């Protein structure tokens, strides 16, 4: 493998694995926030207790998932500088700003507030505690926005001027409203909500089918999960389609490969414009990914629509195979969202910044040996953590609310007043 292949493999693998955790984080956090709010404003003590357990159960799964999300996210910010220093040389003036703002506006706040939420049970006032989880949700989506602005610039560079082979920022507003960022953000957010909804519905249905003895808790969860995934999966398909006109305008080659129409003509045109080279991304990979995403999108959308109708009188979970079908759907949105990223990023090849900087040209002058080591280390660590984390999520999901560890204080110890000692 060449240095470029190794660097690409490293970036694709680490970003892909990171994304699998991010998509569930983004899908679950609004649901956890909504559940927490509802629990906090329930007067009746018995119902309040159920709703609080519900919040802690889903919050527990969310927090376990977040552990690998943040750990892998720490690496992302460094990837560009490590292996792709040509990017900062060419577009550092433009591309760095959204990334800097993402860390300052979103990542910083999300992590700090989540730490406070995890340890705030029984310590912070309810109103403050609920506000914290909403802030976590808000900043998670703000983070997605800034990342999509940076990614949108790679897909469709706007708001800049190139002087002496270096890009300069001229119109920040154009960057912030880049259609390539905004429409994709909508698609990504809805995809995440679909993932979260299907996850909640699938686990709830499993507990019903097994009769684990928490019908009230899981009935509410099932209802929430099915409704969210039905609405989100319907609109994720619609917004996905909205991206096509943007692509036709900005990335004709991607559209040509997907439709299988006019690839050769475009290749000739691009050779005339940018000099000799292969401007066609991997065609089969792109088409298969697109088909997989579309198929999954339509399947999930249809199944959840039927599921909403079957929610009445618990029909959805009374017949076991149907309940298990909901559970079996859990991996599908993850697969679809990875396929979506492949369409977006593989379809951008050979460009790093579309039409301006190729992936090859952006590569750092790092030796193949160093790259092989870093590639192997990161992929091994990330895969190991991903598998461990999913095992843990599955275990906690199966054990149900009674095994929740989040928000517990030690009842064995007598209460002592804690006086600040410094």
């Amino acid at each position: 493998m060449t240095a470029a292949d190794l660097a690409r493999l490293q970036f694709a693998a680490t970003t892909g694995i990171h994304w699998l955790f991010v998509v569930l984080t983004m899908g679950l956090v609004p649901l956890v926030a909504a559940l927490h709010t509802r629990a906090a404003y329930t007067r009746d003590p018995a119902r309040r207790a159920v709703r609080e357990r519900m919040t802690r159960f889903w919050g527990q799964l969310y927090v376990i998932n977040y552990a690998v999300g943040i750990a892998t996210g720490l690496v992302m910010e460094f990837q560009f500088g490590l292996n792709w220093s040509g990017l900062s040389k060419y577009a550092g003036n433009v591309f760095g700003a959204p990334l800097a703002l993402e860390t300052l506006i979103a990542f910083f706040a999300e992590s700090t507030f989540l730490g406070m939420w995890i340890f705030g049970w029984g310590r912070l006032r309810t109103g403050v505690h609920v506000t914290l989880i909403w802030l976590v949700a808000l900043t998670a989506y703000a983070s997605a926005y800034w990342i999509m602005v940076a990614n949108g610039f790679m897909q469709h560079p706007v708001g800049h001027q190139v002087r002496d082979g270096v890009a300069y920022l001229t119109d920040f507003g154009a960057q912030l409203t880049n259609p390539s960022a905004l429409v994709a953000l909508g698609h990504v957010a809805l995809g995440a909500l679909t993932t979260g909804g299907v996850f909640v519905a699938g686990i709830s249905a499993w507990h019903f089918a097994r009769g684990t003895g928490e019908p009230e808790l899981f009935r509410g969860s099932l209802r929430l999960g099915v409704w969210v995934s039905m609405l989100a999966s319907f609109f994720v398909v619609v917004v996905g389609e909205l991206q096509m006109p943007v692509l036709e305008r900005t990335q004709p080659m991607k559209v040509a490969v997907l439709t299988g129409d006019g690839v050769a003509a475009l290749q000739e045109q691009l050779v005339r414009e940018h000099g000799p080279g292969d401007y066609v991304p991997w065609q089969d990979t792109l088409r298969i990914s697109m088909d997989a995403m579309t198929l999954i999108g339509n399947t999930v959308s249809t199944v959840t629509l039927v599921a909403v109708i079957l929610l009445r009188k618990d029909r959805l979970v009374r017949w076991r195979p149907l309940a298990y079908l909901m559970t079996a759907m859990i991996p599908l949105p993850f697969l679809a969202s990875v396929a979506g990223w492949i369409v977006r990023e593989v379809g951008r090849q050979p460009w790093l910044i579309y039409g301006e900087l190729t992936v090859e040209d952006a590569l750092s002058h790092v030796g193949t040996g160093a790259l092989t080591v870093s590639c192997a280390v990161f992929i091994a660590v990330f895969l190991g953590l991903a598998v461990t984390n999913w095992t843990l999520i599955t275990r906690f999901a199966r054990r149900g609310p009674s095994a929740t560890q989040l928000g517990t204080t030690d009842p064995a110890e007598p209460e002592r007043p804690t006086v600040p000692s410094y």
Partner: protein
Amino acid sequence: MSLETLWLALLGLLLAGYFVLGGYDYGVQLLHPLLDGEQQERNGLAPRNTALDAIAPFFLGNEVWLVAFAGVMFGAFPHLEGTLLSGLHPLIVAILAGLVLGNAAIQLRRRTPSARAQRRWGALIVCGGALPSLCWGLVIGLLLYGVPRRADGSFHIGPGDVLTPFVLACGATTALLFAAHGAAFVALRSAPQQAARAGQLGTALLNATGAVALLPLLLTLFGAGPTMTNPRTAAALTALLAAALCGARWWLVRGRHGRAFAATCCATALPVPLLGAGHHPYVLITPSGTGLTVEHAVTDSATLHLLSAFGVVLVPVILAYQAWSWWAFRGRTSHRHADYF
């Protein structure tokens, strides 16, 4: 003061903030097997660990200082970011691998009740503290000494650059300092009995830090260390660092844990101004005394002005909510507190 200098100061603040906050995390991670209180297992949740309990509510908010540092470096100093990270490739990869493992291990350790899994997570937590501490020390040593920059501005460190007495001594000093800093934090946060133990451990570690720190100092004085661009500033900052170490030891021995921790905070933060001010206007220096200046590292002025407009609002807000999180979880740890990591 020019806008570039302000952004350089902010970059320094973020890195120093990371050394102070991430520094005690790493120290605590390193020491956590030694600072384990007598705790009981209950309903499937493995026993708490005194040291990890101390950092728990702050842990997630600490590590992000590093990400913010990287983000601001990319935004405001893109030309430094590209060369620095690719040049230090092996060390950065080691730091990141340690960071990812340690970070995940702390959050996941108590999700598995089996004693064997606990031990494995515990080992990862220690590695996740040791690797970044040591490698950050090596990075500080390299940046103080100078990197082998080529004519095109890029550089690559090899074993020959890292395995020098000065750089290795900086690595060892930093690792010991972070460990002592972690011990001071546990002394501040834990119940009296464990606090006393952490205090003793911290004192021993501070003795060791002081002893090892003499080596880079002597090497510099006898001309085998770095040649600082601004020797007077560097000397003053080094004196402050020495004073902070002595102060930390003095107060730790006398059980004044708050003051001792304040002193170790200063000691962990001071390497950053030492690098920044000691070599100003260079942000990346070669052993021959030239290098990349702030002016050449900084982004275009239009971008810098734009970032400044955001920074004026964001930086105070960030400092405010971080301070709020420290205030909200002040005081010594006890069983009444939510129990998770």
